[in-house]
């Protein structure tokens, strides 16, 4: 009985210490990325552009198609409820505000974690498993500067751009449903939207959010890959953890950021 209790307690303590350990490693990992980024800025830009193709351009299809449908559904749902109160023209406001403030940054980050984050983790995990990272170190090439840093900057730059495109395409999707399909007046749709969406309070805050999500998602994806046990199972688990942890981090950070932004 006593033995059993100590065993459980030891298990909990071990897990807890392990988490703290990983957190410290992750923090040091981020610090190394930032420090190594200034090593050779010109080469970093070239490598970042290549990685932006993989993280940004290749994520475009899923982001834009989802955005179109999210905007269309928002307009339909919003119209359905708003028309009961005789203010169906406000559907445009509803679509724009929910997209710019919340859904644009959050859904983009969730899709990004699933589309680009997993690819980053799997790629780096496999590089580690096949000892490509060690081989680089043998050739006096720093893997952080050569492999990790470009992916980090590519993710951080791509996310706000993707989120902006998501919001814009979502609004256009909402327009497509609201104006030709549901017969809301074209002018009222845009003018009500423009009077209630504020540039500083809504659009800039949305961009800040997506920027923070970009940093969080990319760091999680990179660290899980870099820290993955060098086995097939290790890489698969790391990839799963990337999606789970990124999603949780995005939703948690979203609450924290929103509470800051609303109170101001």
């Amino acid at each position, binding site marked *: 009985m006593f033995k059993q209790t100590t065993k459980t307690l030891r298990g909990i303590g071990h897990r807890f210490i392990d988490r703290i350990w990983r957190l410290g490693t992750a923090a040091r990992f981020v610090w190394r990325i930032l420090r190594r980024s200034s090593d050779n800025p010109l080469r970093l830009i070239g490598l970042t552009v290549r990685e932006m193709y993989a993280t940004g351009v290749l994520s475009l299809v899923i982001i834009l198609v989802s955005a179109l449908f999210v905007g269309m559904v928002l307009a339909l749902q919003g119209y359905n409820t708003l028309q009961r109160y005789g203010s169906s023209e406000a559907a445009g406001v509803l679509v724009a505000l929910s997209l710019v403030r919340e859904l644009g940054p959050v859904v983009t980050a969730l899709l990004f974690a699933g589309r680009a984050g997993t690819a980053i983790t799997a790629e780096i995990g496999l590089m580690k498993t096949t000892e490509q990272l060690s081989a680089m170190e043998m050739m006096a090439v720093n893997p952080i500067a050569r492999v990790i840093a470009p992916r980090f900057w590519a993710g951080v730059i791509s996310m706000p751009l993707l989120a902006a495109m998501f919001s814009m395409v979502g609004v256009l999707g909402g327009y497509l449903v609201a104006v030709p399909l549901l017969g809301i007046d074209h002018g009222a749709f845009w003018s009500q939207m423009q009077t209630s969406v504020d*540039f500083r309070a809504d659009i800039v805050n949305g961009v800040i959010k997506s920027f923070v999500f970009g940093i969080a998602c990319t760091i999680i994806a990179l660290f899980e890959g870099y820290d993955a046990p060098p086995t097939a199972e290790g890489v698969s688990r790391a990839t799963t953890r990337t999606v789970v942890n990124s999603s949780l981090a995005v939703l948690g950070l979203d609450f924290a950021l929103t509470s800051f932004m609303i109170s101001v």
Partner: protein
Amino acid sequence: MDRTTMDLWVGLFVAAGIAALIGLAMKVGNLTSDHLGDTYTVSAHFDDIGGLKPRAPIKSAGVVVGRVDSIQFDTKRYDAVVTLKIDKHYKFPRDTFASINTSGLLGEQYVTLEAGGDEEMLEENGKGKIDHTQPALVLEKLIGQFVSGKASEGDSGTSQNTTENTQ
């Protein structure tokens, strides 16, 4: 993948992202409609501003002529001082009347200016002051008045009834 085509795609991606941001700012947001040309400021005292907020529109005959710049509390007169930024194109007479209205039943509040008949115009050096103002209609107060009015009506009604009964 050829390096140059990849660069092209990334360039297109970045350009599309920036275009989306500008589109959001211009088409969805209020960056364009918010832009006023040269303005002059005028202050007005209100007993109650209700839910008026900075950047609320100032309308005259329904046309937006400016925006609320700031709202402060005057510790001498114990009322609200609202600083109004009005477009330089629109001059208002000195006896202009300012009131706070609500768009729709529960919509946002805005300031309405009604021009008076004075020959002299409001000063544009920032010292201009609107003397005639009407406070915001606060819905709770209105309901309160209505309810108390009904209650007093009801009182008189019952008293009438009682007198009828006694008769």
